[in-house]
């Protein structure tokens, strides 16, 4: 069973059957964009459901269980409700920026998804600077948060936005540097090639000690990047009400909300790709069936998503100065040392390869 999942070429070939080459290329982009949009709107909704179920398991309760079997349609119903809600706003808000902000956030999340190799052939956009593209695109999201917080004309939102700016700029460093540590090992930024390298063993095994350190730093910084507990200073409901999205309602709020969950998926998916072999199965057990790669990729990603949910539902929140101390005084120096350690390991050829 060998279904070709190289979606871009498949669709282009199909479309060029009845239109010019240029039109076929544009058509492909539109079709792929629609497919991704549909998949991830649904995926985002089900991540919300998963979060609510995980929270319920941690908190001695059942979670959503009324709408559909096992509550499966609950978040769909929620989304419908949010669509039908009135879009309110503050009177003296900067209307243009206020309306623009949610799109920044959601677009940056969705764009980042394009480069992930879900399996060998299932990748919309395989560029040679894939990892760099990911880091760059995912930092656009914070502009949306800053704009939203500033333009809402609400002090709680403004404090949330200020915190977000500080937090994202700080933790972006750690995310970037921990990924650079791994790039030293792979020698490439292209995600498909990073996975090729891992056919000799997942990078967390190949790079052993520095890779494990890099993974831990990445998970901490990644959680902070997505503004989730214990780093949810931006929203901090007991301090700021709802933080930067205090003044948003209906679908605009839903964009922020959905983006948070897709960002969580992205952070976990990057970790899967860079540390845990992406779509590769453990010990190559399903190598003969390529499409099962999707299963492995999603499976590993959800393990990491679960880890992040575990953080959220057990840890208290840090204070804003403690958050910065953690980054600038501990994670960043550790990260720099770790890069040197990784360089030494690569130089002395101490990696573990199967």
């Amino acid at each position, binding site marked *: 069973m060998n279904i070709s999942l190289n979606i871009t070429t498949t669709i282009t070939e199909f479309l060029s059957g009845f239109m010019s080459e240029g039109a076929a290329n544009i058509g492909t982009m539109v079709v792929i964009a629609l497919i991704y949009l549909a998949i991830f709107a649904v995926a985002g909704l089900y991540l919300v459901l998963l979060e609510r179920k995980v*929270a319920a398991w*941690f*908190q*001695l*309760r059942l979670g959503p269980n009324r709408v559909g079997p096992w509550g499966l349609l609950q978040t769909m119903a929620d989304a419908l409700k949010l669509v039908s809600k009135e879009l309110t706003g503050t009177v003296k808000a900067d209307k243009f920026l206020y309306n623009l902000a949610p799109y920044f956030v959601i677009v940056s999340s969705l764009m980042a998804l394009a480069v992930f190799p879900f399996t060998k052939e299932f990748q919309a956009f395989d560029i040679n600077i894939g990892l760099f593209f990911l880091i760059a695109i995912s930092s656009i999201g914070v502009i949306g948060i800053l704009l939203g917080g500033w333009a809402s004309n609400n*002090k*709680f939102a403004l*404090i949330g936005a200020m915190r977000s700016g500080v937090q994202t700029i700080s933790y972006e460093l750690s995310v970037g540097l921990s990924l650079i540590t791994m790039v030293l090992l792979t020698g490439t930024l292209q995600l498909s090639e990073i996975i090729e390298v891992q056919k000799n063993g997942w990078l967390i095994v190949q790079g052993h000690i520095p890779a494990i350190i890099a993974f831990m730093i990445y998970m901490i910084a990644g959680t902070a990047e997505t503004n989730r*507990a*214990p780093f*949810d*200073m931006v929203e*901090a*409901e*007991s*301090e*700021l*009400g709802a933080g930067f999205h205090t003044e948003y309602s209906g679908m605009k709020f839903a964009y922020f909300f959905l983006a948070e969950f897709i960002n969580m998926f992205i952070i976990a998916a990057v970790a899967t790709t860079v540390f845990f072999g992406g779509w590769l199965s453990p010990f190559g057990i399903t190598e003969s069936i390529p499409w099962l790669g999707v299963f492995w990729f999603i499976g590993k990603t959800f393990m990491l998503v679960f880890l992040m949910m575990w953080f959220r*539902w*057990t*840890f*208290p*929140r*840090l*204070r*804003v*100065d*403690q958050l910065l101390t953690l980054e600038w005084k501990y994670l960043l120096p550790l990260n720099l040392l770790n890069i040197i350690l990784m360089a030494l390991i690569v130089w002395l050829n101490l990696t573990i390869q199967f």
Partner: protein
Amino acid sequence: MDTTIKNSNLKSEEYFINMGPQHPATHGVLRLLLTIDGEIIKKVEPDLGYIHRSIEKMCERDSYQQIVHLTDRMDYLSSHINNEAVCLTVENALQLEIPDRVKVIRTIIGELTRIASHCLWWGVMGMDVGALTTYFYGFRDREMINDIFEETCGARLTMNYNIPGGLMFDIHPNFVKRTKEFIAHFKTKLPEYDTLLTGNVIFQKRMKGVGILTKEDAISFGASGPVGRGSGYSCDVRKYHTYSAYDKVTFNEALKTDGDSFARYQVRIQEMWESMSIIEQLIDNIPEGDVQVATNAVIKLPKGEFYQKVETARGELGVYINSTGTKNPYRVKFRSPGFSNLSLLNHIAVGGKIGDLVASMATLDLVIPDIDR
């Protein structure tokens, strides 16, 4: 912090924020006027009056039996103890001899109330510092106590179980059994509180050295209950002005000398253990006898002033009754623990961050209807 950064035209300005009356961290309708410089708190001004129901004025209109019911609505988390305070005042004024059975039952239910209140506080405390799961753990254990109350007196929160002269009716036949079950259950669950929250490094970083209140300040602000005891101020009314059956039991007053948020937190956890020990000492020897002594249908207190204080879950509740000899009091004044404890919020929060304010406020364990009667 300097308001001007050196060699720069950048200036930071102080600004106002209205925290409340609808805000998740103020647990009700407390309004805090915050003056903030960036993240740093410069001034906290509590603004009360959003849930003022003139309970003290209403007391002047009501008979002494009716006053008891109003006190439920003050500190609703220790409603039984509030009722008890009024009943004790009236009983002392009338010089009634209260049966031992009543005293013991009042003490047991009072301590159960204290545990229930601290469970809720612990859950909300965790929620205020961002650990949402604690809320459900606290409520799980509180629920069992509420069930016991419901079986005995029909109410879960506003109990009205006390009347001047005793109790409304006897305890439910299951009361002893279910209380013992709860104690056995809670002894295994209370250590979970420590593993989930107390030992967490983030939590300790948030609590230790934050919101420091010295013993002198605690006394001069009139702090009482766990807030005072967290600062090393030994102020347990149960020990120093003993009432009901507290003279029959041995218990330790939970005392910490650090005076920070963590000390207040530890005092409350310790108090739950002490409350369990008090209940264990009493539950097997509830004396036989009547559950009330007969009083007149219309109680008239002798002319004079009467005062009684009790230890609620939040601290010292004082009931002052000024009687002119009629069926209504001339003046009633409640000295509520929350009001005094709130007054020191500005003192402990200034200089900290917004997060510190929320954490310190949570350790004061404020119940707004208690402050704003």
